[in-house]
């Protein structure tokens, strides 16, 4: 049985590594690929818990993650990027080194927090929760260290991946919740997409700095 936990930890760990990869990628296409990798790993992790814990409803969750986040959304974003012609380097607010250091600190914080707060839980569930929290925080961090609207969308989706991983780890989360989470993600993606296109139409760029300039902000 412990082998099952080892494998699910491995998959969660791979997701965390892809989160770090998301932080240091410099090109939009690479960011999207890293995100697709993370989503596919998520689908694998969810499928593995569905199989090992004998909870067939989680297969649906895995399927949703795989099709929507692993394939449809990255492909759609790839096409958008290609159409808008923005596959150049993404401007960052802080350097890669700093972002990675902060990410490391956040991972440490997530570990320390979960190990303390969830002291009563079984150790394997605790580990998984800590990894999920670290992924969520890294997704948030990605949203604030990038200036590009597309990469912000990706950061947001990455947070969502962390949430679903946490939900899988927490036993007894009903399918309805997962479906609603998935739909909320879908809807927010649409909103983001609409915004991206509107920004593009108006400013000929998806760099958020254009928005700031429009409002007369100075940095």
């Amino acid at each position, binding site marked *: 049985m412990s082998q099952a936990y080892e494998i699910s930890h491995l998959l969660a760990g791979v997701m965390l590594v892809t989160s770090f990869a998301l932080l240091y990628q410099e090109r939009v296409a690479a960011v999207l690929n890293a995100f697709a990798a993370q989503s596919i790993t998520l689908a694998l992790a969810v499928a593995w818990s569905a199989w090992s814990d004998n909870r067939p409803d989680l297969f649906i969750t895995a399927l949703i993650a795989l099709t929507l986040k692993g394939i449809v959304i990255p492909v759609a974003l790839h096409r958008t990027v290609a159409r808008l012609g923005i596959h150049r380097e993404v401007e960052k607010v802080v350097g890669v080194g700093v972002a990675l250091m902060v990410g490391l600190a*956040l991972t440490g914080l997530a570990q320390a*927090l979960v190990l*303390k*707060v969830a002291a009563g839980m079984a150790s394997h569930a605790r580990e998984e929760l800590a990894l999920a929290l670290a992924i969520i925080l890294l997704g*948030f961090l990605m949203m*604030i260290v990038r*200036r590009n609207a597309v990469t912000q969308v990706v950061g947001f989706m990455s947070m969502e991946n962390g949430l679903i991983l946490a939900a899988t780890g927490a036993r007894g989360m009903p399918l309805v919740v997962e479906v609603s989470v998935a739909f909320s993600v879908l809807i927010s993606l649409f909103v983001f997409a609409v915004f991206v296109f509107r920004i593009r139409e108006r400013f000929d760029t998806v760099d*958020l700095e254009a928005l*700031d300039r429009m409002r007369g902000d100075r940095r």
Partner: protein
Amino acid sequence: MPGLYVSGVALGALAIGAAMASLVRGPALAFVYPLSALAAVVLGVVDLQVLLSGSEAAIRLPIGLPTIGFHLRLDTLSAFFGIVINGGVVAASLYGMGFDRAKELTPRVEPLFPLFAAAMNLVLIADDAYAFLFSWELMSLASWALVVARHTDPECRRAAHLYLVMAAIGTVALLFAFGGLAGPAGGYAFDTVRAHRPQPMVAALVLTAALVGCGSKGGLIPLHAWLPLAHPAAPSHVSALMSGVMTKVAIYGFVRIAFDLLGPPDWWWALPPIVLGAMTAVLGLLYAVLDRDLKRVLAYSTIENIGVIFVALGLALAFSANAQHEAAAVAMAAALLHVLNHSWFKSLLFLGAGAILHATGRRDLDGLGGLIRRMPRTAAFFLVGALAISALPPLNGFVSEWLLFQAVIAAPALPQAALHFASPAIGAMLALAAALAAACFVRVYGTAFLGRPRSAEAAGAHDVPLAQQAAMGGLAFLCILGGLMGSVLAAALAPVLHKLVGGALPGPGSGPTPFSLIAFDPARSIYDAPVIALFVAIASLTTLIVVHRLSERRTRRGPAWDCGFPDPSPATQYTASSFAQPLRRVYGAAAFAARETVVMPPPGDIRPARFSVVVVDHLWRVFYAAPGQAVLGLSECLNVLQFLTIRRYLVLMFVTLVILLSIAAVTT
């Protein structure tokens, strides 16, 4: 039950009258005042009957909040304040009946008048926190709408705005007071509140909140700033209601909370009302003496009287806490009688000010003068009011002030050192206030009615219509009657005094005459108004006769001496400002940092010399301007947050999240 039934009916009639008046325009507005007067008379009679018979009536209406309902109760305390209020409403309505139908009735004022009156009555019979706050807010909003009726005047708008803000602060404070009274169980009906006694800390909170809530409505310093602006801004008969009557509703609220709902008092409860009240009394009159606007002077004098009443209430709390029931009854009787008396003479004075405003169109004292010849009846009534408010015997103001000083004199018998030593200081401040009140009204009366007119409007003044004279005359009659029959009034208060402080004054029967007012015992504290009135009358008549008999009546011829009037210009007369100058020099320098500067042109220059006075209102600066500045500064700082970029908002959220998570990680 019958009492409340009639009350309910009359209240309903008032409300329907308001609704109809707001629907019907034009000539129908003229029916507002007769109907209001009628309803107020009915309510007043019911109140009187309840006060005299001591029977209480309660009812629970199935409106309001679902589980609480709307409790109403008419007990003797409500009935007493009901008499005060409905008396004022009758006088103001009578005054309103004298308005010119074509010119002076507006749909901005008349429909709200009965609403305001009904709301004040409703506050008195409210028997749960919800009903109380609802009616209290209704009263505030109705009076606010009356203040803002002349909204084209920026001064009015400013007054109304300040009033609204202060009313909101007061209601929030009362909300806290009732929250504290209800306790954790949340029993908001007054019966449930009476049943349990709050912890000392909760009692302190409730008392503070009640002082803020009721004090802001009554004009307790430093919550007074709106009052001298808002009361004069309303039409004069509404000013009379606001100043003479609505401030009494504030007193009622404090009495209800401190003496009835909060349970047996502790001695330290007495300190805040006494100290704030004494400060209010002195400062209110200093403001009044220095102001030159007739209605504003009256409003400041209202503040002073509220201070006096709060001192009396504080003393009643102190005596009550020490189980000195006779002394507590004296202090409480002083407070309640002053409530009644002030409602009469302040309404009278405001109606008089309204008559002057109507006749001359002016409120500035330095533009009036000589009105005693042009408005003889108003002058006579105003004189009665001015004498009464200056607490001269045998008028009614003296009765309550006398009782108050009896209570102050008894205060050194209190065991607590703080009260023991404070009482002489309080007595001195009250005496100062009384002297300043006399000076203030000598100044008002002398400037407005005596001398020669200082403006063309004052010279062309004429007396007001009969209904308005009747309103003032009735109040003047009450002031005289209340002075002579003070002992009867005090005896009628006995059920209220028993209910609030568990004691009463010795009845009038134990004195030498049927109308002796006795505070403690006939040997050392007795006031016999009719005897004093008789003595005053005999002495004055004798003096008059003697002077006329003994003085030389033969016409003499002598050299022209100008009779002291070398210059016929009325500008050479003593003015309100010049009358106030000595007082301003003595007290103003300390209280208001008053500075006088004289700019004298050099010899040969034909420019006139300039005299100017700068007065700084410290209270406004400290309690209003400074907090206002602080709030503005803070919002300027926070304003930056309104214009961040999306990414920075995200950073803020993220940093907050990380900090909270770190705290959770460290503390667990």
